[in-house]
């Protein structure tokens, strides 16, 4: 953990006060109880991202991976030192874990490439097609995708 448990708990407390974390409080608590402090930290960092979106100041340095639950989606990404999402953001359906959207951001936080799901399907079909997509891109980049 790059944040202390105390810092994480303070984030959660403040998020709860600001009505931010109804979807996040339970997974955070569950991860904490399971001793999975890495996931706990990522979910707490997700709340910091929410603070930033709502102009609520939080003094802790937050750079690192985060998880945020919102509207039936699980959002995984990386926050830079300014609490802005950077690099890669992956949105999956919280229940099915099917990938709904992937964004690749540049160093300024601007989206460079974006993958969007076009219709509903199951996890197996999603994974099969995402593997095909990855293989096609690797091949286009001159990287042999075959093991």
């Amino acid at each position, binding site marked *: 953990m790059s944040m202390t448990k105390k810092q994480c708990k303070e984030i959660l407390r403040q998020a709860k006060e600001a009505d931010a974390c109804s979807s996040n409080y339970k997974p955070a608590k569950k991860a904490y109880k399971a001793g999975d402090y890495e996931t706990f930290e990522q979910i707490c960092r997700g709340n910091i991202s929410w603070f930033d979106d709502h102009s609520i100041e939080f003094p802790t340095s937050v750079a690192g991976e985060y998880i945020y639950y919102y509207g039936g989606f699980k959002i995984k990404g990386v926050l830079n030192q300014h609490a802005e999402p950077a*690099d*890669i953001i*992956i949105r999956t359906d919280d229940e099915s874990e099917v*990938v709904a959207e*992937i964004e*690749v951001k*540049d160093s300024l936080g*601007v*989206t*460079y*490439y*974006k*993958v*969007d*799901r*076009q*219709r509903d*399907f199951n996890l197996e*079909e*999603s*994974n099969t*097609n*995402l*593997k*095909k*997509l*990855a293989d*096609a*891109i*690797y091949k*286009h*980049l001159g*990287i*042999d*995708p075959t093991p």
Partner: protein
Amino acid sequence: MGMTKTQCIHILVKAKEHQACFNNYEPAVAAFEEKDYGTFEKICRGNLTWLQRRGIPTPFSPTGPYVLYSDNEVHRGEVNDEHMDVGIKMILNKRTGLVESMYIFNNQGEPIYSLKKCRSGSATEAYEHLVKLTDALHLQLGLQPLPSAQE
């Protein structure tokens, strides 16, 4: 080749008649002269798809990979016998060769996932971001990124 050279040439002639192939005729002729019949066939199939989607009858089935050039883009994909895109379709910038968009279709020709380039940038930037994307996809699928992509 899935089509004969005669069939391919017939498609090109017909496409030219219907003013479809201004951007495709030269690459097709170049591929033919270089005896690159694989590419030649794909370009002809691109024209065949173009003809069939405009209701211009052709006697051949288009099934297979195709290449279609427009003023600014190169479309690379695969069509089934009902002229629908299946599998992966890649749209490249004709001048830079950069990936502008991609689609993955199911066997019914319905798009499943799309990929779009959201801003302009250099070839190096585009390459780096596509590598990031594919590496992230592999990690999401529980696979390791390919070693050559990490270099």
